[in-house]
């Protein structure tokens, strides 16, 4: 390559897919390019015309259209177009028009084919549309983690050991000892086909039988656990792990339809992944006081960094961190009840916000509340619950979950109320929505019962699912609030930066990325009557309705995953460098690959917000 072409080369070397090309290949590209200028408004590619070039924008910007004439994308400096036609039938598939005065470089088809055949990165990059580009960026990251790619069946080392549920305690213990298993499946044999009815574990025998001194003739059905949590045979190990974390169970029957394939235990996964967060969780339950909990809370960040380095996905990390947070809370409640005695009336301790959504990370504060039984009499009972709430809240603060600045904690009497009051709160929010009030109560629409009478929380979920989808005004108010936070994307896909506390130009990946996304996913989920709390599960529910086109749901899922994982990696890097993790990212700290895909992801958020405005804008009487 001639030295005089260095300007062209240096420019292309800044942008994917050229940045990763070997020098000799890039030289070959540069030697063969053609330069052309297009005045703003001039067509560059017309539909159906033959095309034998890959186009690269050196300066200016162009608009890419769909066949229907609808605007598909705006792309600018350093980006490419025309690749789909080259890969297909050498005809233009997306018409393109110059939006600004633009100088473009044309790369001949022959060179395009040469790169496509000889460079995998290049081939991957050009083969996919930019939204699906996001998807392949994700799948490339996920390769290496075995937890993510291995099925639970791999952990099954023996045929399931089962017995009829009509046997006695003594017999059950004998079978378990004989087979050397820590859990016994109990089958109902009332129909032709025996089916799984319950399970009994070593721990159950200790806590429910021995400690209560039950006679050995006690029917096993009296003490077995029913309403089992199970996993599917085709589930990945990490899914089973999430199920255990979420439900705090240590054994999972693996089901293939109605048939039990085996049982996997916590210890199987811990063995598989000895450093896993499950290990930390089981350790939490072994602590006898707040001091002990505080001590092991130092391991939380290590566990987080380890998962990031193992290329876990955001759903897995978010669930694991939420599972850990939930375990701290549950253990503190157990310790509190030991200290204060049993609760005077039944209650449910509720997690709110990111913990309820299973989307917690390392920088997080505590958001919680208590639902008390309707027999609650404040004068008689509230002293107990206030003290318990304080014990848990102070304990969580010691373990690194700082106090909620908005005072959304069970220590606040407003959020320590009987079920009937909670029902009236939710009814008011939904049926008489006011934007300001909803801004503060948004967080209550991500809720999860984590201790005690969790059915109270389920009742609230049902109430929300029933009422929300029928209140357009409520959804419109939520939509209006959700549009307050926009993605940090300027015209022509430049990042819009803000100054952080230390005068760095950054953008906030939570406030301008994951938060607006989970807000808008919540609204669609509520509109579709979903009871799910996790954003990815909500998206699954949304996909079952006709609320959004199938493609948009996939795009939202990819965008959420990508922004979350960049945010997670940013925090893990900070922890490893000994800095306090935060959500403020400087664009120069991202790789060009991440920058490019983040822009794709923010574009998805942008489009989704536009749709939200369109869908609910007229109902609320929008004032944005």
């Amino acid at each position, binding site marked *: 390559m001639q030295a005089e072409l260095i300007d062209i080369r240096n420019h292309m070397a800044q942008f994917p897919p050229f940045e990763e090309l070997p020098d000799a290949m890039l030289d070959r590209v540069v030697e063969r390019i053609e*330069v052309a200028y297009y005045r703003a408004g001039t067509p560059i590619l017309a539909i159906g015309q033959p095309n034998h070039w890959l186009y690269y924008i050196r300066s200016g910007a162009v608009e890419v259209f769909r066949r229907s004439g609808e605007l598909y994308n705006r792309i600018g400096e350093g980006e490419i177009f025309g690749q789909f036609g080259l890969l297909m039938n050498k005809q233009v598939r997306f018409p393109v028009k110059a939006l600004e005065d633009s*100088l473009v470089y044309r790369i001949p088809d022959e060179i395009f084919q040469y790169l496509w055949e000889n460079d995998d990165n290049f081939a991957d990059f050009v083969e996919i549309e930019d939204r699906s580009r996001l998807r392949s960026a994700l799948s490339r990251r996920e390769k290496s983690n075995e937890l993510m790619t291995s099925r639970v069946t791999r952990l099954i080392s023996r045929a399931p050991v089962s017995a009829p549920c009509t046997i006695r305690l003594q017999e059950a213990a004998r079978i378990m000892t004989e087979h050397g298993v820590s859990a016994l499946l109990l089958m109902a044999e009332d129909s032709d086909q025996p089916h799984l009815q319950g399970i009994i574990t070593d721990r159950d025998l200790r806590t429910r039988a021995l400690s209560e001194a039950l006679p050995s003739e006690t029917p096993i059905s009296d003490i077995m656990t029913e309403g089992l949590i199970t996993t599917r045979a085709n589930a990945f190990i990490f899914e089973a792990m999430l199920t255990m974390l979420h439900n705090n169970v240590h054994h999972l029957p693996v089901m293939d339809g109605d048939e039990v394939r085996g049982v996997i235990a916590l210890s199987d996964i811990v063995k598989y992944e000895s450093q896993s967060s499950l290990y930390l969780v089981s350790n939490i339950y072994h602590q006898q006081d707040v001091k002990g909990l505080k001590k092991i809370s130092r391991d939380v960040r290590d566990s987080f960094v380890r998962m990031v380095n193992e290329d876990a996905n955001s759903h897995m990390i978010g669930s694991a961190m939420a599972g850990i947070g939930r375990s701290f809370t549950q253990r503190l409640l157990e310790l509190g009840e030991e200290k204060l005695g049993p609760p005077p009336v039944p209650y449910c301790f509720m997690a709110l916000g990111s913990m309820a959504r299973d989307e917690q990370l390392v920088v997080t504060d505590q958001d919680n509340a208590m639902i008390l039984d309707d027999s609650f009499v404040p004068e008689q009972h509230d002293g107990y619950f206030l003290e318990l709430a304080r014990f848990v809240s102070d304990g969580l603060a010691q373990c690194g979950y700082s106090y909620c600045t908005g005072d959304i904690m069970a220590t606040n009497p407003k959020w320590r109320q009987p079920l009937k009051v909670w029902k009236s709160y939710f009814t008011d929010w939904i049926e008489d929505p006011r934007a300001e009030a909803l801004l503060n109560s948004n967080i209550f629409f991500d809720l999860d019962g984590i201790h005690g009478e969790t059915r109270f929380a389920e009742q609230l979920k049902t109430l929300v699912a029933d009422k929300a989808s029928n209140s357009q005004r409520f959804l419109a108010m939520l939509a209006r609030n959700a549009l307050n936070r926009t993605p940090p994307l300027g015209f022509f896909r430049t990042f819009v930066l803000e100054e952080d506390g230390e005068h760095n130009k950054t953008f906030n990946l939570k406030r301008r990325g994951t938060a607006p996304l989970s807000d808008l996913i919540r609204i669609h989920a509520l509109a579709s009557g979903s009871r799910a709390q996790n954003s990815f599960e909500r998206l699954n529910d949304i996909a079952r309705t006709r609320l959004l086109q199938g493609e948009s749901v996939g795009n939202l899922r990819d965008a959420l995953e990508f922004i979350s994982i960049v945010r997670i990696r940013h925090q893990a890097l900070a922890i490893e460098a000994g800095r306090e993790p935060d959500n403020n990212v400087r664009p120069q700290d991202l790789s060009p690959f991440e920058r490019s895909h983040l822009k794709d992801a923010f574009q998805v958020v942008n489009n989704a917000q536009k749709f939200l405005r369109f869908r609910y804008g007229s109902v609320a009487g929008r004032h944005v």
Partner: protein
Amino acid sequence: MPRSSSASATVRWPAAMSDATIRGPVAGSDRGPFGNRKPWPERYRELADQARDPRLQAFYRTGCPAADTPIAEVPLVALDFETTGLDAEWDSIVSIGLVPFTLAAIRPGEGQHWLVKPKKSLSRTSVTIHGITHSDLQQAPDIGERFGELLSALAGRVPVVHYRGIEQPFLNAALQWRLQESIQFPVLDTMEIEAHLHPDRQPALWQRLLGKKPVSIRLADSRRRYNLPHYASHNAMVDALATAELLQAQIQHHFSPQTPIGDLWL
């Protein structure tokens, strides 16, 4: 009379423009008024018969497109010389850059860049301007050795320059010096086009007092008006490429692909 095929956005090229608007030395005493359809194809035929050097004869015999050829159909070549100064009689060429192109496509990969040994040694100021060192030039061939390649690169193409006071006069002087022959050819001058587009580029005193800045028609400044990128490096070939891009932009903004070449060449 020149014509332009598309209506409002196009500039009416003046039938005559006084040479007074053009600053700097202008070579060729037989130049008519600006925009006049000079009969370059006929002139080439005459010059081919007069030329003695076979390379020059070949250059003229390749011919020149007819004046009424739409510019979109004319093979062009962007040409830029770096020189030791502005006086073709006194100063000399130190580097030559050229890039063949058409209105539709520029091929930088087919561009050429040569250093040539100047008649006299380089002055200090020139050294810093061009970033070319004495030893680079001491090792460079005499310009006479480049005539063959240069003339064949120009043959059949209309040269495009930014400021016509340099390339044609300097090449003419070099041929005189080494071959005792002269050379004539038409040029498209992107600076002249800018000058024409901004006739009042020097604001009057009262305008200057109000903060109005003069419009610069230098290459880099002109390019900026068309949203063309800034080039960090400067040498004859990069500037030739920059000139080619500028012409593409000018034609798209102010003329039309159908504009006859004869309306634009000088």
